[in-house]
């Protein structure tokens, strides 16, 4: 039910704001004057920003922290003063100390950097106006999507540009490793949290009280990344709930009237970390953040990274999200300074809200034509070893896909003043590192010669994964119809119930892979049916789901969109059945499965190099664990994985056996018989 209100409407009617380029003014006037200009943001209820020392003392003097300190001291037998000091040390390590001078320094340098990297930074100014309004009314939480290190600098830069209160940003501790930069970021408003502090009560208390104090008093907007980390694949990541829980708590406990949550979608035409991410996904470890590393990255400054679109979404009121969902009275029976684990209902409310917000981010991601081209090129490459697509055919397909994606509600930024072929060639030229045009035919770039076939394969995979990350930007547009298309494809009949069961199975299988709101199967099915029916691809009657004559092309495209994932999961199944030993641990899983996949790719039994993505492998394992096909053994053999081979086998079957065969457009649908009762097990 959670996603219904937000999503089940005609996407064609979606009204979106216009953009303005903030760099334009920077190119025409002095950066120095801009950095030094008078900065007078509007404030929440006129509350001036709080000095960091005062904020710290408010946190240290809070009832909440006092309570936990005395608890910890009782449990550990340490003196309260000692624990208090530890809390104070944690706070010193964590706290931001925003300084306008540092912000001005960033405003100046970032202006220079941005102008050299990007053609434009486009912002929806209506969104800025809404944000300005929201900041004055309620405490604000900013939730940008996370695709690049650039994200939070960019956010602060924009808020400074528009004279809005600068946010305080939750950043991972790893930044702190970059000595000088870490401190600079701290002075620009970042605060640092450890990546994991599972059982550390004191740390949690300091951290949550720190965030809540800022929110409750409305000192500044709090900014964090719902996805927890940068998405290396450009797919939205399953939201992390910790910070959102903390941010909603003051509302749930009545300490503020409301909290406005503003999803922000930042879309990069070219991601700075593009190949870096691909290498990371392939197991070439991520370089530790270091200041010198940053300077080495200087060469990126000379490249063209196209434009950035930043869309400030509609502020979402936590109060209205909670309306009818949460019984706030439950918090009235225990003093509010005593920390308590949120109940099941609160957990599911926060979880649903998080999904809604991530979907709101997805919805307002601006897609560039290249995203469509990348999808088409990847599909073409997978279809078999061919010469590549003729440029005019690619253009024709792109136009077809443009229209389809618009019908599905994509926020596509297709320059209508240019001819389609101009659009295509300018996109290709921006991404010339990833494509090769040879004799008027376009295909993915060929890696440079390599010593071993394996090396060659990995080099190729870097290109494929880079391309896939662009295709993934559009995944949310096609995801539900694609699940339905695949369900129609794998279902044993055209019976609506069968198709639904199949849909439900796939959706369940992939719920670690994509953003699918928990418990919204029926709504997603309805939404998918609605879109496919609207575009004339299928007809849905009371009993049946039938593909129309003209619908095959759409369906083939949609199925091919999902196919790498289906095959990827199947390969992991194969691995689990064939190679998983008794002693396989969770840690060994990725390297082992990677080896297995490389073997099969080299042998030619597998077509999708993108299956090498560790992201897909992790997600599939998480799904198998969730479904109980694999279990983590607790006790002596800590961390070993126990595989239920029967179940894994049947999952592989249900995903569609030997589906390396392709879908024949216009021909008869291939049917894969699956045991109905077996399927019901997983639905």
């Amino acid at each position: 039910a959670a996603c219904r209100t937000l999503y089940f409407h005609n996407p064609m009617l979606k009204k979106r704001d216009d953009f303005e380029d903030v760099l334009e003014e920077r190119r025409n006037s002095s950066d120095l004057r801009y950095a030094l200009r008078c900065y007078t943001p509007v404030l929440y209820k006129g509350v001036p920003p709080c000095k960091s020392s005062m904020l710290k003392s408010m946190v240290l003097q809070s009832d909440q922290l006092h309570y936990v300190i005395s608890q910890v001291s009782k449990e550990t037998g340490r003196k309260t003063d000692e624990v208090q000091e530890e809390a104070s040390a944690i706070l010193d390590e964590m706290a931001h100390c925003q300084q306008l001078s540092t912000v001005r320094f960033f405003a100046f340098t970032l202006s220079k950097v941005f102008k050299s990297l990007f053609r434009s930074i486009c912002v929806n100014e209506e969104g800025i106006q809404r944000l300005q309004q929201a900041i004055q009314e309620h405490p604000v939480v900013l939730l940008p999507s996370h695709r690049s290190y650039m994200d939070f600098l960019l956010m602060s830069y924009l808020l400074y540009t528009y004279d809005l209160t600068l946010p305080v940003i939750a950043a991972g501790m790893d930044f702190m490793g970059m000595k000088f930069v870490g401190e600079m970021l701290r002075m620009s408003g970042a605060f640092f949290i450890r990546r994991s502090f599972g059982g550390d009560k004191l740390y949690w208390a300091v951290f949550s009280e720190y965030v809540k104090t800022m929110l409750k008093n409305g000192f500044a907007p709090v900014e964090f990344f719902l996805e927890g980390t940068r998405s290396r694949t450009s797919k939205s990541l399953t939201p992390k709930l910790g910070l959102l829980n903390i941010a909603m708590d003051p509302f749930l406990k009545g300490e503020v009237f409301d909290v406005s949550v503003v999803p922000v979608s930042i879309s990069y035409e070219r991601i700075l970390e593009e190949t870096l991410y691909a290498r990371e996904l392939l197991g070439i470890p991520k370089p530790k953040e270091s200041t010198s590393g940053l300077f080495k990255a200087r060469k990126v400054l000379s490249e063209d990274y196209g434009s950035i679109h930043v869309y400030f979404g509609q502020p979402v009121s936590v109060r209205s999200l909670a309306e009818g969902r949460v019984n706030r009275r439950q918090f009235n029976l225990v003093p509010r300074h005593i920390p308590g684990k949120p109940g099941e209902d609160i957990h599911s409310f926060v979880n649903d809200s998080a999904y809604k917000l991530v979907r709101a981010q997805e919805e307002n991601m601006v897609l560039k034509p290249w995203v469509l081209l990348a999808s088409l090129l990847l599909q073409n490459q997978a279809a078999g070893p061919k010469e590549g697509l003729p440029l005019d055919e690619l253009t024709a397909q792109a136009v077809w896909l443009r229209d389809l994606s618009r019908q599905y509600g994509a926020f596509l930024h297709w320059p209508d003043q240019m001819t389609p072929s101009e659009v295509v060639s300018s996109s290709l030229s921006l991404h010339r590192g990833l494509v090769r045009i040879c004799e008027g035919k376009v295909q993915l770039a060929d890696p440079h010669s390599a010593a071993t076939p394996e090396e060659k394969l990995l080099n190729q995979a870097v290109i494929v994964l880079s391309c896939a990350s662009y295709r993934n930007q559009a995944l949310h547009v096609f995801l539900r119809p694609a699940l339905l298309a695949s369900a129609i494809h794998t279902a044993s009949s055209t019976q609506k119930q069968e198709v639904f069961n199949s849909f439900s199975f796939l959706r369940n299988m992939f719920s670690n892979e994509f953003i699918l709101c928990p418990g919204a199967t029926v709504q997603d099915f309805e939404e998918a049916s609605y879109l496919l029916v609207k575009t004339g691809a299928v007809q849905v009657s009371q009993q049946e789901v039938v593909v129309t004559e003209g619908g095959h092309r759409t369906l083939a495209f949609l199925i091919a969109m999902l196919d790498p994932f289906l095959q990827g999961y199947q390969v992991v199944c194969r691995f689990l059945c064939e190679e998983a030993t008794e002693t396989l641990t969770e840690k060994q899983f990725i390297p082992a499965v990677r080896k297995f996949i490389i073997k099969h790719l080299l042998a030619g039994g597998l077509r999708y190099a993108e299956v090498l993505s560790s992201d897909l492998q992790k997600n599939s394992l998480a799904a198998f664990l969730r479904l109980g096909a694999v279990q983590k053994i607790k006790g002596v053999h800590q961390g070993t994985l126990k595989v239920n081979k029967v179940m894994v086998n049947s999952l592989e079957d249900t995903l569609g056996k030997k589906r390396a065969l392709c879908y024949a457009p216009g021909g008869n649908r291939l049917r894969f018989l699956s045991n109905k009762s077996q399927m019901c097990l997983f639905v």
Partner: protein
Amino acid sequence: MDALPSLHKHGSSMASNSSGGGSDRQRIAQQRLRIIAGHLRRPVDVDSTILAAECKAQDSKTDVSSEGKTVPRRRQEIMKWNGWGYSDTKFLFNKKGQAEFTGKRYKLSGMIMPALKDWLEDTFGTNLQHKSPATPILTSSAVQPPTLNEAFVEELKSTGIPFSHDAEDRVFRAHGHCLHEIFALREGKVGRVPDLVVWPNCHNDVVRIVELACKHNVCLIPYGGGTSVSSGLECPPEETRSIVSLDTSQMSRILWIDEKNLTAHMEAGIVGQDLERLLNESGYCTGHEPDSMEFSSLGGWVATRASGMKKNIYGNIEDLVIRVKMVTPQGVIEKSCLGPRMSTGPDIHHFIMGSEGTLGVVTEVTMKIRPMPEYQKYGSVVFPNFEQGVACLREVAKQRCAPASIRLMDNEQFKFGHALKPQVSSMFTSFLDGLKTFYITKFKGFDPNCLCVATLLFEGHREKVLQHEKQVYDIAAQFGGLAAGEDNGQRGYMLTFVIAYLRDLGMDYYVIGESFETSVPWDRVLDICRNVKLRIIQECKDKGVQFQPLASCRATQTYDSGACVYFYFAFNYRGLSDPVHVFEEVEHAAREEILANGGSLSHHHGVGKLRKEWMREAVSNVGMGMLKSVKDYVDPNNIFGNRNLL
């Protein structure tokens, strides 16, 4: 039933007392008497023999004349049928366009409030050109003819107990003072009303009436002062039996005073102002002064668990009651002794107090009394903001040194209080006022849009009062409070009674409003005040109200562990097709917000039918079952069928 803000008699009386200082009890008593008498249209002919009067129901004349009583049988003789209070008293805009308070009853009567017009216009966007006048007279055709139970009426006649099925009498007893009730009356709309009104004269009359009602299966609805704000008096529309309103107003005698034990025994129909007046004559008081005390009755207080503004000294009704007599369909319930406390199982008084007329009629009450205080003094403190004010009240409660009354008004009410300042008579006062304002806002730097005021009332021995006063002002100073004089304090208490009359003025100009209350733990006072006010504003906006509403609050009582908070809300309804519906939705949302923020369903207004839907959640399923089983035993045929509470 106590409820709507109404006259607080101190509001109009105590100005000169505070400077008195003499300990002559008799003199003070007489002074109080004079002033209270001034509330009434006719001077009261005090008949001291009334103290010893006994119920001679059958033989005594049944048509007790209204001359000696505050409340006549025909209430319409002195009270409005479609508004608050006395017919001769109301706000209006005179020919010069200035607000004026008519009549002679109150201190403010006959005065002009020059600032009120602007305040109304600024706060609500009202315009004196746009009037929404009430239907002037009740057309009896609007009232359904009574459904009479002939056999019951026959037997009732033979008892000699007076009754009436006159349309006006019946309409008068069909409502309390909820906004929707008054709004409907002003439009001349009348729903289900009692079919008969009966005026018992004493306990035995009530016993007879209840017996007859049981015998003939007639629905009884007890009626005391008619000040309910919980839809408690509304006749259930689904009731098919004949409904008889049992008006206790004629049972208003003090039966005895026991000076040795400091108790008094009264008939339950006595209204607050009479009770205090008569006790004062003997040098005593109960100290129970709900805001509605002019009109609300002792029986109503018991039936709704009333609270008085001086409860810090005297206690709430549950602390004051020693013994209660209630007539139920199963017979009379009462305790067998006057012991000050007992351990005899659950206290049966707690089935009676708060039963809201669902179990029977309270006929007689023995209550604690106190010697009248020797000295009273008003006071007030200005705080830079509401937060500081609440912190101060909390500290006062912590030190258990609350004066007889301590109330904290928010900024909106502070401004409202200013709007009710009567025309200043001398240049000097006006100059002084200007100086004070200058001192507070300019010299002390208080923001006039944030500051708030606490009003205080001290009572007791003169030295102790002065000592106590110093203690409280010292605490206030710790929270940035500045003493702001006696006048401000006194005017603050006046606001209480004025606002009820003022609602009628508002309704003449498209403004509708209501007050409601809750009790809440200390640590949530600020949160609940902020959230409920914002919720009201948001709901009004969402529901299409065209003008900014007034949402205001004050903390009116302090306890060891929490406070009672009153909310006021009102808005200009021009442009709305169904203002009452919008109003009720907003009120409903506000109550939801109260509950979500840890407030109680009611501190002293009761549940009635207005708040019934939340009752189960408030007391749990088992609690509800307990109450139901009591009702099932005491009144299996639902003779007391007002359907309140459960």
